[in-house]
């Protein structure tokens, strides 16, 4: 017949809704005490150790073990390696390995595995490959003893072996699908059925683990695009733990009664002056000009207003846990526009100069940009910001080297040499290769000194860098490790993301 029921689009829409039945796994139960759900804004490029980054450590720590374990306070403890020792030249590190560890397929973890992993790491082209620069090879001394040969001393080698470079994957799987099917000796294994790469990773406890099992049967890591959503998730108990960086979200977290939060000073924020030799901006070659910039900024107000006072003022790039740290250097450059103008005048630029800096809105918000340009204008420096897309910013700054300086957030690991390697040695953040005799000498001294004698030259270097005003640090930022009250979090020295081992059930 031709009679039809009255049609509304509602019926059609219902059809569409019902189509949606298949689906991926979401984050597992939130209030289940056996499950730890970590919220994060960091997504790993892959789960292949070659692509590992410190900020994504928990993802890797779930499925891989590192050779050396870095304790929350930054000291090193045995993990897959039970003992280690340097030779006198500091170019040979002998590692003694555990003998009771095997990969899932039965392959034993041994010196061959260490050799395979370590020798692959610098070659595999990951973002941290440079940390094993100077690796000449790994010698298999016997089944469970490996000797790492370096071309020159690397004072941070142990740090790196507790970090990205230290994750040991099954040598049989290297280069073969580790990205999405990790194969390590870690306490958990990835549950591919409930994992949706890019949003949720679910790790299940392994039945057999060589070490002390971690307290959670299941660990889920959920990635977020916005800290606001992340914090809301913690507030409603769907996320057990997270790191909160934005000032406003921190104040939410602090004021919310049910939440536990642990503050930690981690990154420092500041200008890195790349062009200390004056290639782009000749004025910057003069130390007095760089000092003037340091004096020009009103750091206390910036700290108070831009990050709601959540941080500590500093004028040095070394972290508080490093040997190089000198408390009095934190107040070397007072806010003193008068002095800044004098210094500029002494340097022959009484009328100031022009400066163009890159601005990535995620790091330099409008208020910061305005306040810095206002402060610099005060002393005659005319600052312009170029707004850069994140996709192109790194190329513009590091490949094209188009800017004399840049505002960055940098981690402050407890290991002095990490800071030296990244900020002082020619390369990464010193791509224009600035140096001077003092720096060269001190670096050599630190590199070759026995462990207990490296502190003094490091402090010396720190003082020299502050005096030469290589950098314009603003403050160390305080982050809040927040939990919904069911988890206790122990911050990890020098890293924003606590190690996976640092989470325990509360109470």
């Amino acid at each position, binding site marked *: 017949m031709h009679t039809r029921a009255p049609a509304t689009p509602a019926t059609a829409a219902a059809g569409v809704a019902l189509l949606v039945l298949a689906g991926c796994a979401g984050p597992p139960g939130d209030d289940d005490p056996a499950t730890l759900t970590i919220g994060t804004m960091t997504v790993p490029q892959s789960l292949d150790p070659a692509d590992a980054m410190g900020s994504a450590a928990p993802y890797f720590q779930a499925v891989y073990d590192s050779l050396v374990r870095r304790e929350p306070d930054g000291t090193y403890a045995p993990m897959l390696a039970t003992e280690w020792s340097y030779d006198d030249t500091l170019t040979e590190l002998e590692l003694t390995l555990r003998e009771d560890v095997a990969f899932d397929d039965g392959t034993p973890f041994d010196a061959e595995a260490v050799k395979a992993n370590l020798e692959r790491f610098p070659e595999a082209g990951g973002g941290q490959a440079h940390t094993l620069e100077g690796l000449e090879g790994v010698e298999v001394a016997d089944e469970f003893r490996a000797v790492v040969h370096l071309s020159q001393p690397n004072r941070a080698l142990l740090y790196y072996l507790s970090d990205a470079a230290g994750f040991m994957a099954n040598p049989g799987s290297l280069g073969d699908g580790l990205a999405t099917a990790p194969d390590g000796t870690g306490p958990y294994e990835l549950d591919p059925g409930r994992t949706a790469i890019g949003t949720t990773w679910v790790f299940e406890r392994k039945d057999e683990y060589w070490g002390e099992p971690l307290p959670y049967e299941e660990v889920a890591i959920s990635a977020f695009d916005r800290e606001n959503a992340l914090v809301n998730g913690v507030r409603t108990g769907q996320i057990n733990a997270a790191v909160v960086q934005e000032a406003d979200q921190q104040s939410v977290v602090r004021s919310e009664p049910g939440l536990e939060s642990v503050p930690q000073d981690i990154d420092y924020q500041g200008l890195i002056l790349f062009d200390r030799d004056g290639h782009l901006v000749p004025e910057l070659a003069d130390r007095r000009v760089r000092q003037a910039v340091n004096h020009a900024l*009103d750091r206390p107000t910036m700290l108070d*207003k831009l990050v709601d006072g959540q941080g500590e003022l500093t004028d040095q790039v070394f972290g508080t846990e490093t040997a190089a740290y000198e408390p009095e250097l934190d107040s070397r450059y007072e806010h003193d526009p008068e002095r800044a103008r004098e210094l500029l005048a002494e340097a022959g630029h009484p009328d100031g100069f022009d400066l163009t800096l890159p601005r990535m809105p995620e790091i330099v918000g409008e208020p910061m940009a305005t306040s810095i340009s206002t402060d610099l204008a005060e002393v005659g420096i005319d600052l312009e910001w170029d707004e850069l897309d994140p996709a192109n910013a790194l190329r513009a700054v590091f490949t094209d080297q188009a800017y004399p300086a840049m505002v960055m957030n940098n981690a402050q690991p407890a290991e002095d040499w990490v800071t030296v390697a990244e900020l002082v040695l020619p390369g990464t953040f010193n791509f224009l290769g600035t140096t001077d005799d003092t720096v060269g000498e001190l670096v050599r001294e630190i590199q070759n000194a026995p462990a207990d004698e490296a502190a003094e030259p490091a402090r010396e270097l720190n003082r020299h860098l502050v005096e030469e005003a290589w950098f314009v640090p603003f403050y160390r930022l305080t982050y809040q490790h927040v939990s919904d009250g069911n988890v206790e979090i122990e911050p990890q020295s020098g890293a924003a993301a606590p190690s996976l081992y640092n989470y325990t059930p509360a109470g």
Partner: protein
Amino acid sequence: MSAIDTASRNAPARRGAVRRFAASPRAVVSALVLGTIVVLVALAPVIAPHDPNTADLGRAFDPPEAGHPLGLDPAGRDVWSRLLHGGRFTLAGAAVAVAVALAAGVPAGLAAGYRGGWFDTLADWWFNLTMALPAMVVLLASRAVLGPTVWTLMVILGLLVAPSFFRLVRSTVAAMRGELYVDAARVFGLSDTRIMGRHVLVVVRAPIIIQTALVAGMAIGLQAGLEFLGIGSGDLPTWGAMLNEAFTNVHRDPLLMLWPGLALGLTSAALVLLASALRDVLEDRGAPAATGRRARSRATGGPAPSVSAEDRTALLSVRGLTIAYPHDDGSAKQVVNGIDLEVRRGEILGLVGESGSGKTQTAFSVLGLLPEGGRVEKGSVTVDGQQIVGAGERTLRRLRGSTVAYVPQEPMSNLDPAFTVGDHLTEPLRHKLGLSRARARERALELLRQVEISDAERVLASYPHQISGGMAQRVLIAGAVSCDPDLLVADEPTTALDVTVQAEILALLRSLRTERGMGVLLVTHDLGVVADVCDRVAVLREGRIVEHGSAERVLTAPEAPYTRDLLDAVLDNTPARGPWRPREEETR
């Protein structure tokens, strides 16, 4: 001639668009708000107390105070000044989006709608493509190519919303391409471009203005959304950027969100209100003075007139009926003015008049179905002894179909195009008479045969657009008599039909009257029709009955001068024009 009736009813509302605009509170308020915002923003450099970019970080988040009426923002800038200056970029951005959308959509829509053909196909395809593009990806990618400024984003946005203008203009123009005045313009020798400029643009102007207001509002909202996603204006202080900045500090200073939020909300609300007010003003769709609800309650609320014994004997009895359409200003236009009518069983009464005489209104009032805004002011209408005026919907529903039925003028528009003839016929049968599906179908076939449709089975399965006008009128008559009514109200039932079909329909009415003893109220302007079928006739002029009597008497010996005028105008006896002769001698 209901079209003309409607037109003349609307005729008193002869007011210019400007005056209608001024009379609409919605329009005035929204225009005022918008105007104030635009003026404030345009004067920003003059009235803003501070430079929008001068920052004093130390005073960031300071509350309102003298000199800083809305306080200071997270960078220590004056919020009020930023709001004023920011409005410039926000509104200018929206203007850019609208301008681009207009420039891209309107000419293409004009050309596609007017010329059709390959250009239409191509343009339509292209704009469909634009609409299918994921806007966010396009915006992001273009931003990466062209740089992070609000202008780029708004240009791209304009291109993305251009299809809405294109479609609007194209469909409006395509619809008017068939209009006679466009044909006329072509006959006069107007070129296509001039036709577009003169006729087409004038017609699409109103919808474009409305759409412009909506798109402007949307662009402003979208700007804010993009800022929220971190893809914004660069360093320009747009309202969206301010809102987003306030959002990132909402816990520290919630009040900061209020001002840009208010500015955005007010502007968007004013734009959408203006659009809807403009629609009413420009498209002349203003609600009638009395809205339906009030009109209905008035029509049903009054005390029902009593029914006299005399009224009970007649099938239809109209006494002193006055129908009026109230105006905005409280006065009312009376379209029917105290008329009396009577139809007995088996009798056909012709109600004759010219357009605007009120004959169709009378017919509607018999059905209790006056158009919106109209109401019975005085008098009574009884059908089979039941009072129609003031009767409740339930009573009317019972009477309609089974006691009084209706045959409309224009057969096509009176059938629901979405339903088959069968649906139209069986629905009342099943609903009113409670017949089963099969019985109703049988009865429907029977009815179609009764109205002399030979291939009833096929017609039953047809949709209205698949049958001819004459056929449709037969279907409507079949539907009207399906529940065996006593009175048939036929409103110009043959006017839209060819004369040969008209003769058949009239014959059908006549036989229904004879066979079923039905009474018919036949509304018509055609005296020939009256002569053909009516027993009695009432002549209506400007809402009053000027003459009433047997058809034969009124048509052969009219008493009222107006009836005589009407009869004089009939061409039946006008001599045919003589043969043509060349007219060389008639030099002027």
